[in-house]
């Protein structure tokens, strides 16, 4: 990822900001200028809670360049509580048994080895939920 794009996307990467449609209330992640459902352009930024459930996952056994420091790692699709589906790395999965439908939560982590960029790319990942909300 190039530096200007990383900077532009910081709300999305750090705070899980997407869009909410003012017309049909559809919620979209990542953010878009036009609502994919009703084609309205009246969208407003919306920060997602970061809570969701694991929809699907797999394990990367041969990490590509830029990810070798992670050893093997997991990636998955997460259904956010507010609706949208997000693809992301699954953090803290070593030694845990991932299961479809398990509750997960957003964390901010380093997305790639810093050596690739010179700058450190921080962004969202999901991990098995540490504590039930309000529990």
């Amino acid at each position, binding site marked *: 990822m190039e530096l200007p794009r990383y900077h532009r996307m*910081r709300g999305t990467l*750090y*705070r899980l900001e997407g869009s909410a449609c003012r017309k049909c209330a559809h919620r979209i992640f990542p953010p878009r200028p036009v609502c994919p459902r009703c084609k309205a352009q009246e969208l407003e930024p919306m*920060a997602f809670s970061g809570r969701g459930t694991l929809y699907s996952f797999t394990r990367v056994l041969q990490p590509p360049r830029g990810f070798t*420091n*992670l*050893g093997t790692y997991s990636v998955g699709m997460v259904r956010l509580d507010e609706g949208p589906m997000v693809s992301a*790395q699954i*953090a*803290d999965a*070593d*030694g845990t048994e991932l299961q479809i439908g398990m509750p997960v939560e957003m*964390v*901010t*982590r*380093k*997305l790639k080895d*810093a050596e690739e960029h010179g700058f*450190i790319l*921080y962004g969202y*990942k999901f991990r098995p939920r*540490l*504590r039930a909300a*309000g*529990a």
Partner: protein
Amino acid sequence: MKTAAEVGIAGYGAYIPRPRIATRAIARAWGRDEGGRLPVREKSVPSPDEDTVTMAIEAARGAVARAGCDPGRIRAVWVGTESKPYAVKPGGTIVAEAIGATPWVSAADLEFACKAGSEAMQAALAFVGSGMAPYALAIGMDAAQSKPGDHLEFTAAAGGAAFLFGPPEEALARVEASTSYVTDTPDFFRKQHMHYPEHGHRFTGEPSYFTHSRGASRGLLEALGRRATDYRWAVFHQPNPKFMRRIAAEMGFTEAQIAPGAVVDHIGNTYSGASLLGLAGILDVAAEGDRIFFCSYGSGAGSDAFSLVVTRRLAEVRDRAPLVGDYIKRRQPIEDYGEYLRIARKVRLL
């Protein structure tokens, strides 16, 4: 020292990464006696995708969740650490951005060896107490550095905590007073192009840790006209289980008073995070009316001491974020030193 207006801690959050290495695996790698006495059983290590900034973000989120305040009203994010991911480029801005405190916020990284986190607490306390800010966030967090093979490698751990200072009516603990005690004492240092810090060996004990912890503690107790028995809980900087217990006993505190904050026993020394993580551990069990004594230590050298009183609000907000004990329990063992080197990024390409 007392602020012009009353100030409280409105929220707190902790963080400890999952990977743990048994200290006997470190002893084995360096050909030391595995059966010998090691300062702690295991220590926490950041996952390969974690650093001081990511750990500070999670602690900060915990503090904001417990406070329940609008993050846009936080006027300062100060991160005390000696393991900044960038030599030049603040980490505080990344934390501020992640919690939604930007752009009307002051942000910086502070350095004072292991005292940087409590230094951030003093500044945040003053920022709120002067009326300049409704809320100010102080963080102490480290992915502690130690030279491979050095005795510090057995304890240098990762973790820390965040404290959000705010108005007294939203306090989960009110700040009664604080003090700082500092002299120039070169017991531990790292120059710009050194990878690992050096320490003054025997010099680190009496003239450094004990003199300054004692100075700040006595100063604050005398200023308030109090004794150890006036407190329910106490926390000191914890480079190892022994130093912390020796100073606590010397000041008149019992094992029962320090036990919930003795995080070093479980995960090692988190440097700038250590005393703050201990305070978080105490807030996890404290009840309304409990008085808490806090004293940090940082090489270089100095100590900050705080006197706190818990309010009823603590019990109401405690469960909005994970407890220190949740993070201690959540562990991923690393049995082998080679994996530790990869994870801790100690292998450098020449």
